[in-house]
């Protein structure tokens, strides 16, 4: 409770909880975080988790192998439902990948300092989620080996992509997002990599971390350049948070299909993405802080704040549902209205009601402060929201396609075992990458955490000027 002023800056939270536990010094922060990577004995649980997730990666490779050998027909897709799990998962993963950049870039620019302890692994999560997401549009192609035809590359036949198609925009949006997120994450890692380099005892550690640290010596010039680069990247990444999911939503809104063709999709997709992204951050952060004893760094305050973001974005999503319903009624369009009624009462009714339960009804529990501060409750709720958002994408993709304009062509879709295998496989890949990340890189930004300490406060510099860069110490 020492720094009430900073807490005030950091959030609208009136409860004045700290963003870092008491009793930490520069050294203790560095020790604690770097020890996970360098000195701690790797816990048994890590190996077990890695093995389990790796076996899921093997399922993924098996499922993808079969897919490539036989064709997308091993999935349950058909005519009329020509997009299934692949696109559902793509949108879901991209959505999850939103939280990282949001936390790193937007909250950085908005000076929300509580973000510091969660931004690193949220960014990593973003990268891995976008990797998972990126697999699906490739794999779902009928002929994945010619995926590069979606890029405008020079070729002798002078054939170029068809730029009216949102799928082409998607290619640019997602690849840009991935590149910028990767750079942002890596640039942010450099000072910490240098710390690891300096503290590493093994030769390999020194060499690898040293190479990755790119010669960081912590000089004032380094810090100056670093700060400019980081700020620029944050500025670059910020519009991307909004643009990626907007473009993803164009995949649907540009089509004429009832249930897709809707102008509310871009904001509602972005809100949904943040909603699910924060849910995923919680899903990962809560076990992480528990197993590695990081309660001091990822505090109840963080949980509380993230819960509030979820509540807010959840309400935007709920508003989106309401507006879709209203527009279907107000437009007087019989196809739209049938689509809405079909969601409520058609063969896929459990999906729609599931979405409402998971994304609208249950998140209202977050109004309760007690619940917002209960790690267990938030963990469970984050799982519920992740499920709900997956179902929402299923609702949009599959249920809309199943019954469109011509009743004679109506059909249904259900995932086959290979649909599930690929989905579970990407979950495994995601967790696998997270395990590797936690083990080999500092999951929490060391140098930024140090700025949160009272010692970092440069005396006399004004509260109003609390900059993201204030009091950066050099590496120890």
């Amino acid at each position, binding site marked *: 409770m020492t720094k009430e002023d900073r807490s005030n800056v950091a959030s609208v939270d009136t409860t004045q909880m700290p963003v870092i536990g008491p009793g930490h010094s520069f050294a203790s922060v560095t020790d604690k975080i770097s020890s996970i990577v360098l000195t701690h004995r790797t816990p048994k649980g890590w190996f077990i988790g890695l093995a389990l997730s790796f076996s899921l990666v093997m399922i993924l490779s098996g499922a993808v192998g079969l897919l490539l050998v036989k064709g997308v027909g091993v999935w349950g897709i058909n005519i009329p439902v020509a997009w299934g799990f692949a696109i559902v998962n793509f949108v879901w993963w991209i959505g999850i990948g939103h939280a990282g950049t949001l936390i790193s870039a937007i909250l950085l620019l908005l000076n929300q300092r509580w973000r510091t302890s969660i931004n690193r692994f949220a960014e990593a999560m973003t990268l891995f989620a976008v990797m998972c997401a990126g697999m699906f549009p490739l794999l779902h192609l009928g*002929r994945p080996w010619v995926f590069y035809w979606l890029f405008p590359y020079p070729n002798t036949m002078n054939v170029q992509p068809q730029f009216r198609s949102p799928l082409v925009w998607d290619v640019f949006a997602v690849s840009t997002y991935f590149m910028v997120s990767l750079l942002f994450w890596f640039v942010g890692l450099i000072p910490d990599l240098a710390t690891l380099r300096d503290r590493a005892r093994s030769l390999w550690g020194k060499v690898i971390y040293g190479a990755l640290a790119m010669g960081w010596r912590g000089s004032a010039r380094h810090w100056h350049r670093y700060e400019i680069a980081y700020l620029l990247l944050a500025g670059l990444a910020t519009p991307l948070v909004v643009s990626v999911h907007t473009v993803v939503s164009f995949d649907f809104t540009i089509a004429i299909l009832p249930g897709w063709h809707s102008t509310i999709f871009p904001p509602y997709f972005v809100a949904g993405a943040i909603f699910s992204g924060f849910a995923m951050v919680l899903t990962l952060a809560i076990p992480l802080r528990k197993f590695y004893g990081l309660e001091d760094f990822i505090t109840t305050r963080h949980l509380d704040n993230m819960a509030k973001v979820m509540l807010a974005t959840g309400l935007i999503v709920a508003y989106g549902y309401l507006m879709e319903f209203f527009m279907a009624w107000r437009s007087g369009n019989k196809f739209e209205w049938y689509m809405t009624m079909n969601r409520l009462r058609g063969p896929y009714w459990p999906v729609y009601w599931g979405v409402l339960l998971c994304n609208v009804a249950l998140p209202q529990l977050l109004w309760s402060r007690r619940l917002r501060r209960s790690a267990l409750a938030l963990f469970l709720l984050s799982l519920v929201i992740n499920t709900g958002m997956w179902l929402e994408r299923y609702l949009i993709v599959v249920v809309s396609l*199943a019954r469109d304009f011509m009743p004679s062509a109506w059909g249904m879709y259900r995932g086959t075992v290979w649909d599930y295998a690929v989905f579970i496989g990407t979950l495994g890949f995601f967790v696998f990458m997270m395990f590797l990340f936690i083990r080999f890189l500092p999951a929490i930004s060391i140098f930024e955490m140090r700025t949160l300490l009272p010692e970092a406060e440069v005396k006399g510099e004004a509260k109003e000027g609390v900059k993201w860069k204030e009091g950066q110490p050099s590496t120890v």
Partner: protein
Amino acid sequence: MSVSDQKLDLAAVRQRLGAARGKEYWRSLEELADTEGFRELLHREFPRQASEWQDGIGRRRFLQLMSASFALAGLSACTRQPTEQIVPYTHPPEAIVPGRPLFFATAMMVGGIAEGLLVESHEGRPTKIEGNPDHPASLGAPSVAAQASTLGLYDPDRSQTITYLGDIRPWSAFLGEAQKVAASQQASKGAGLRLLTETVTSPALVNQIKMLLAQFPSAKWIQYEPVNRDNARAGAMLAFGEDAGTIYHFDKADVILSLDADFLDCGPGHLRYTRDFAARRKLDGDRSEMNRLYVVESSLSNTGATADHRLPMRPSRIESFARAIAAGIGVQGVKIEMEPSHSEWIAALARDLQQHRGRSLIIAGDYQPPIVHALAHAMNHALGNFGNTVTFTAPIEAEPTDQTAALRELAGEMEAGRVDTLVIIGGNPVYNAPADLKFGERMNKVKLRIHLGLHHDETSDLCHWHIPEAHYLEAWSDARAYDGTVSIIQPLIAPLYQGKSAHELIAAFGNQSDKSGYEIVRDYWKSQRVSNTAGAAGGDFEQFWRKALRDGFIENTALPAKQVTLKFADNNPPAQNPQSAIRNPQLEIVFRPDPYIHDGRFANNGWLQELPRPITKLTWDNAALISPATAERLGLAYEISSRGGEHGQIFADVVELQFQGRAVRAPVWIMPGHADDCVTVHLGFGRTRVGNTGNGAGFNAYTIRTSDAPWFGAGLNLRKTGERYALATTQLHHNMEGRELVRSATLDEYRKQPNFAHEKEPAPAKDDTLYQNFEYPNYAWGMAIDLNACTGCNACVVACQSENNIPIVGKNEVMHGREMHWIRIDRYHQGDPGNPNTFFQPVLCQQCENAPCEEVCPVGATAHSSEGLNDMVYNRCVGTRYCSNNCPYKVRRFNFLLFQDWETPSLKPLRNPDVTVRSRGVMEKCSYCVQRINAAKIQAEKEGRAVRDGEIVTACQGACPAEAIVFGNINDKESRVAKLKAEPRNYGLLAELNTRPRTTYLAAVRNPNPELEEA
């Protein structure tokens, strides 16, 4: 992969090669992934890894690699290569220009009745069947069965060798056997020789058989096929005291009553009848009159679906209904017993018929007992229709017999051991003879059994000799059409296997056993010619023969009209007829031939198996059809599986049908409009020995079909088993959900408001688009489909499949909702499920001017042509399937797996060389037969003119017996299609979405009887 791994591969490969010598299956439903990999391995010049070992190949490594490559190269040299003789023409045949198809006239028989065909032949291999426009039975439209017959020709499951007790024998061995039979039967004058054929109309074959019977006077010739016309024949005997062929003239009929007759979809002359009937329902130009069709039937047929008034009725009640009508229109001495419920209907119908004396027509279905046929004749007579809408000829069969009775007699003789030699020519009696005759069992008592058939089937299994039959596209023959017109059946290709025709088989027993089919048929007609036109011969015959072959039929061979006198007296009062006497709601069983695989003979034809049945849209299976009310009463239902849903897998309750002590298990299908308290089952399924495609599809309804109830019978017991069976359907949903998809009105409404189709959904203005409108400076292709003419027969679907190399996908994939047909016939019901109005709507690519598919393709694989086609560029398609998602018509089809069979050698010549054979992972769809458009454009350009109207006929258009589909250039305001599009009834499907479809529909108009409308 190391070299040692490759050695392991070689071993596996050799093993595969060894196994491949067996039967090559045409379309196994499991994917042949391992085979693919292997093929690729063989076809690549170097093993896969060779190109990837780029760095550091030392000398030893190089040698290892090279030796592996040589080993593989040697291996691919050892594969079984097809023996191909690539001898070029030293003197090229005059007519053959490589790449240009030739057309030959021939004819195909189903049930002995010919339909005239033109067969497209590419470099000597028949690929596509068209109708012969000059032939009276088709007037240019081929039937579904005929169009699918090319696949039948190239079917890899056809029997390929002559076998004796399973061992391969040469033809000469069989000739020896046949001569031995002839010698041994000589003494008894053939008392032990029986010839079993299907219905024969072929003059040359009849002549041969008669000569054989002259040689062996005690031998007998039996004709039998399960779908026969015994009832019609007996009905004629009852009415006129003699057999007669009946010919209907729908062009002259204003009011038509069908008594369980599906005259639009099966039976002799149905193509011609459809043409004449549909012509009287078209309202384009200044035509404002329509005929009116009443149908009384049990199971909803295409004819019933097209009707203006339809009454579902158990088949046994139709007799009493016919009596009531007969009494109503004043046929003398008819005894009536009719429940009062339909009295209004009957009264109105009778009045309508009487108001159209001489212009009305009453047709009895072949499935109805003779008395109904006799009543129909009497009614037509009373209405003065004889000589107007109905005429008579001598029967077209040379020897019409009561086929069921003849087979029963044969079975009795076999049982008694009086048959030494049974020669079965075509047909499959072991499978399809009435169950009570126990034909298969009794056949074992015959000493020598010989079977000629296309497949080594159930009958061949029980025969000593099996002779592969030559397909009609491989052999010479002749046959009569529904009106008696004779066609010479000329082959398009030499027999692919060692097939023999019926002519050659019968000749084997005579003196000229080495005579070829060609000589037999030609000599017969030569002799006819000589005897008919005494004096003229020789050169004259050559002219006659050439003309007959070129025309596809022999002029003036239609049987002359014959005067019949009605001798009908109703001395067979209703009570005596056991079947109509049953009044309690006991269940009745109704047997019908399958609309596509007929009596089972086409069961191995994948196109026909996968063709959705007109009303049920079932594929690959038959089912026990029942009405919704009966299903409810019996507690039977189905469940839509989420796998494919309404467009895929349906779990149906399985029931056991017990009839006359025999039982069969069948899945139940609830059919709106089916008559209550009866169950319709289709014949032809449940084959066990036909081939890889047909084996095991559906259940065998012959197992409960007896000779005394060939078409229907009361006393069916239905037991629910509690099991469920997965059926594959392409359209379960039959409700339009209030959308204006099929727009319809009554004739009165149409006259009052010709513009009725546009009242509810006006199309948006042309400029309502973000993008620039396209210009079409030269041609603008368009299509108009008259929903008033469409009878839902599916001929267009199979025509498209044949023309465009469309693969079949198998039941499993249909259940996934992945069938590949480029055109589908949507079927909608409207109103009371007990007796709904039914509409058909062929839906193909609408070729939108504002195409939703084009905008969303990321690689531009579907693009707009300068003539308004939405072109599909297969080799550019990456398979995102976005185009299909954005297509409101859902007419795009995707190759989810490798559906096309790239392996089976015999299927390769089947394909249309002008159309790309698509592989896995690409989207495809209707192209308006762009290959035909381009062929016509090239021709026109060479001749320095524009393409003429009607010069381009799309495959679906050419196949439509009702001429419901018209294609042409809409820039030419004088073209037929432009004129149809100017009709007030013309509307665009979902045009309110601003897709501006090039395919438009002429709204349906029904012509109900105003009296009944009000009631």
